[in-house]
């Protein structure tokens, strides 16, 4: 279990407990946190679960796969700390993680 903070584009914070093994995307969807569409349910096929990982957590959230990199390359408003939240798995190490959500997933 890890406490994850999702910060909406308008500054609203949602703090939820996410079970180890779920993805950051699943943590948002299952708790009805807005801002993550996740059209494909985690198949890395749509880039609608885009988030910005807080700089302090970049090391712990791991590397992007080639597929993720390639999808993100064409998403809107991409920054160096952009990730697809379906590709980050929750572990105890990520307890306290902060991610920010873009204004739109398109």
């Amino acid at each position, binding site marked *: 279990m890890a406490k994850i903070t999702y910060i909406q584009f308008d500054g609203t914070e949602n703090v939820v407990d996410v079970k180890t093994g779920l993805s950051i995307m699943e943590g948002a969807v*299952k708790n009805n946190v*807005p801002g993550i569409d996740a*059209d*494909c*349910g985690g198949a*890395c*096929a*749509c880039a609608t679960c885009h988030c910005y990982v807080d700089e302090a957590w970049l090391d712990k959230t791991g590397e992007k796969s080639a*597929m993720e990199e390639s999808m993100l390359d*064409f998403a809107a408003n991409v920054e160096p700390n952009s990730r697809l939240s379906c590709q980050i798995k929750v572990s105890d190490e990520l307890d306290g993680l902060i991610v920010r959500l873009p204004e739109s997933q398109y």
Partner: protein
Amino acid sequence: MSDLHAHVVIIGAGHAGGTLAALLRQLGHTGQITLIGDEPIPPYQRPPLSKAWLKGEADAESLALRPLEFYEGANIDFRPNVRAQKLERAARKVLLSDGSELTYDALVLATGARAIALPIPGADLEGVLFLRTAADAEALKAAVGPGKRLAVVGGGYIGLEVAASGRALGAEVVVLERETRLLARVACETLSTFFRDYHEQHGVTFELGASVVGFEGMGGHITGVTLADGRTIACDAAVVGVGAHPNDELAADSGLETARGVVVDLEARTSDPHVFAIGDVAHRPMPIYGRMFRMESVPNALEQAKQAASAITGRAPPPGEVPWQWSDQYDLKLQIAGYAFDVDEIVVRGDPTSGKFAVFHLNGDQLQSVEAINSPPEFMMGRQLIGARKRIDKAKLADPAVSMKEVAA
């Protein structure tokens, strides 16, 4: 009608209905929300049923869109194992299979589609399976395994995904397709050939141009599939994936306009302003193609859930979308954007034998759709180009050395 206190009744607890209920709460709807489903479990994702779930890589908990507790916590009255029997629109009332009735301010039909059954002898034998619901998937999972012989009737996306998962589980798989090529209704020849070759390399056998006329059985269980040419293909189970039919009877019986699907506008509203229809059951406008049609995909279910949620809570509709869908087979990721309407030219980018290529469908110099195999840039950029209705330079598009960003520039 945008009353945040309205009682919204959603008929159908699939991906569309479940998403709508959650979205309404996200958008500040405070009125009663009742979600009726005819399955025993809360809304779940169907796409993994033929893929990760069948292969044992996903469980019931990960399939669920949201946990059961969510609905209670969000004050959504989720009622499983119940069907809507009759819609009385004048009284704004729905009669349910448990004998109760509900009065609504807004009604949303999210009744989905059902797998088409083959009206042939032996169709009721044990081991003749479909893949639509979690219960169907459970039965299929029990029927495939090392050494088991699985016959897949229908060479569409569902059939091919089941074939790939069946092989991963060690089953012998034969795909029986009535047309002379796979994916005949939904994809071009290049893709059909590519998928046939790829599946054959993974040990799947094909019978193309094969008309299935019956199922044979012994002791009530299937033993084979009979073809029109008299041959029998022996099997331990058969899964029928020959398309789906919209569950639009409730709407049609109540006098709502239907056209193989419930006819709706861009707000997902039917011919009755108090009734909406979303997801697989809806026959909806698609402005970028200037026509109306019915789609069976998760992105469509989500888009229409957004349309209905916006209309019910009095918000502007979402910006128009480019429809898309995906399929996973073996290590292949197929991503499709748009639909190939009025196509007069096909451009293939990349070499199919490399397992990484994209097929672009054009009308004049306008992109209508793209099918991308292991090619996210082609899919992502193609999808944007379809939406932009921009002139395409076909020579650049056909040259993989020219990046998709340059193609779009």
